[in-house]
């Protein structure tokens, strides 16, 4: 069995094009374009003719792929669910941050 040391990439540092995003997530480019126009996936540079996407978009697109496959979500439902998931992520992040700031003894 091969044992090798593998280097990794920080997910947060990814910047990819729409076609790379399609390749990485397995979502068809047309579907991604719909999600972008619905605002569910946002490019870093919205004004550019060839938009680039960062980690948040990659994460949302991977969610989209799984949700579409596993729940049969259509183009209307998908952006809605992604938006709600993003809000939950944000709230959980705030909660973690508040918990860290509170003195341990009074939690």
């Amino acid at each position, binding site marked *: *069995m*091969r*044992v*090798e*040391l*593998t*280097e*990794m*990439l*920080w*997910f*947060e*540092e*990814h910047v990819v094009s729409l076609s790379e995003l399609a*390749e*990485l997530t*397995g979502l068809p480019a047309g579907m991604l374009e719909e999600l972008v126009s619905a605002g569910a996936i946002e490019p870093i540079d919205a004004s550019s003719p060839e938009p680039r996407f960062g*980690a948040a978009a990659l*994460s949302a697109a*991977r*969610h989209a792929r*799984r*949700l579409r496959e*596993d*729940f049969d979500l259509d183009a209307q439902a998908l952006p809605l669910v992604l938006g709600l*998931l993003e809000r939950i992520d944000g709230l959980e*992040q705030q909660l*973690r*941050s508040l*918990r*860290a*700031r*509170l*003195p*341990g*003894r009074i939690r």
Partner: protein
Amino acid sequence: MKYKDYYAILGLERGASDEDIKKAYRRLARKYHPDVSKEPGAEEKFKEVAEAYQTLKDADKRAAYDQLGAHQPGQDFQPPPDWRAQWQPSAGESFSSEGLDLFDLLERLRGGRGRGGPRVSMPGQDYEIAVPITIADAYQGTEIDLDLNLPDYDAQGQLRRVPHAFKARIPKGASDGQRLRVPGKGGKGFNGGRNGDLYLNISLRPHALYRANGHDLYLDLPLAPWEAVLGTSVQVPTPGGPVRLKVPAVTQAGQHLRLPRRGLPIPKGEYGDLYAVVLIVVPSVVSDRERELYRQLAEETGFEPRAHFSEEGSYAS
């Protein structure tokens, strides 16, 4: 090969209709899908449910599965020869179900992939795993041993599970909720399809002293009342070693004293900050002499900690 009761996993009787199967799947997916569920063990449970649904929603696979008969879940069994003859006629002598799991076996039915016909290229699957690390690991970087069992396509385009063992270096600078992508380390692609990626989801284990928020750390700093009033200099632990922290006179409980760049490293060479959160604590045992001094202090002081109570908050006339 271990038997799996796909009907029981979906909570159904063996004669369930296609509609019942779909409904049961939807209900369980809603409950256990890792993207929407907070149930412990949801991910594992969802995998079972998805596998059961993949099998039972396909008429051929379901018929083949039904003909294997009902066994106890987990019971060892072999598909009988007449079953093989019917469902896997071209597998021939070389076919062995050794090492195959039930799901893989049903993937190989007659007419399935790899039975000749046009070979399509298939991308490998992406994998996502949770990697809990300590704050010390995040500070110094660490190596972890990964031992994964990933489905791969073999040269014939058949799915099989292959053990992958490798070491992964988690660079310093990890923080809670961060993800690492390991390109090409997921399932292998088939016929020119790209290899899948492996995603590591980092979480930080709780620490006795530090609480992490991103790359910042929070540490409780208990002070005696006189230290908080007079100010002092105290030694505090930081991941990089103890440092002296000047506590200014008249420090209040709940204040955050910031130690710049004493938190966790950030990948680009920066560091988060460490915050000492002030707690004012009192001794639980006091001597007679101490009590006498507190009494003198109480008589002497003009401090009114609750002065603002008298102005607002009561509405009775």
